């Protein structure tokens, strides 16, 4: 009974249509709604998925991008209502679940091999 109520609340928080399936190593474009004053607009954030965390509440994924020489990592919960869409731009062949080693690399060393 108690668990039912908790899962009922969790279900209300779950998005109706799941996001496009992503995998570690994918280059993705995440569409995030941003509020500026009382205006809402969508801002895309493109980068590499370096980690996917599963768990209760849907889990989250980490997107890393390097812009103007500064690396930015953002953590997006799968169920976050502000994440409206995820587009997979390319996929890469990776051999581990978490690509944290990319943090220590830059330039050509930070490339991943393409997967068709």
């Amino acid at each position, binding site marked *: 009974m108690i668990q039912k109520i908790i899962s009922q609340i969790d279900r209300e*928080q779950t998005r109706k249509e799941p996001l496009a399936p992503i995998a570690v190593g994918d280059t993705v474009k995440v569409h995030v709604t941003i509020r500026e004053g009382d205006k809402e607009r969508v801002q895309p954030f493109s980068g590499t998925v370096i980690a996917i965390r599963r768990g209760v509440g849907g889990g989250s994924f980490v997107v890393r991008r390097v812009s103007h020489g500064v690396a930015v990592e953002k953590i997006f919960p799968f169920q976050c209502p502000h994440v409206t869409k995820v587009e997979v731009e390319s996929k890469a062949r990776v051999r581990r679940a978490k690509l944290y080693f990319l943090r220590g690399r830059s330039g050509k060393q930070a490339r991943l091999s393409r997967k068709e």
Partner: protein
Amino acid sequence: MEGLLGRKMGMTRIFTEKGEQLPVTVLEAGPCVVVQRKRRETDGYEAVQLGFAERKASRTNRPLGGHYKKAGVTPKGVLREFPVEAGEAVQAGDTVTAAIFEGISHVDVQAVTKGKGFQGVVKRHGFAGGPITHGGHSKRRPGSIGCRTWPARVHKNKRMPGHAGHVRVTQQNLQVVAVRPAENLLLVKGAVPGPVGGVVAIRKALKKANKSS
């Protein structure tokens, strides 16, 4: 009405409008039934005695059974008093729901914490303990507990090992995230003492100015 009885249902998280995740505790808040209205003339103070959760009539002893019968309600599992204003029109038999928390920004939650059993001073009182390495012989011991020939005894209330937990604790100023009177649910930000399924007393926060109270 200042508060009511409820039950802890567990924790989860919800997303705010800003897109942030908010840890919430789900509380079943009522419905409670007024079992007795205490008045200044008869009892010396103003209060309501609320009953929460059903109890079998066969498991209720006769003195208590008569108490419920007088109010015209079914036997309840838990009873507790809450203060009310003298002019408030509540009487025995009335039902109190989570709707009393609508428009309230903060609540206090009172509950009995999880029992931890017999614990040492490190867990029970947060002592630092002794050195673990360099030949430490008092790793989790309390160390010295007093002086010498004077006072030749241990001071009263010296913090020592013993039973930890299972005490009534008030968690003050928990932010109300959502009130759902239809489902008897109240969502508050953060943790609440006690186990899942434990009985809690919820009241409007004493130390926060609640706009509509």
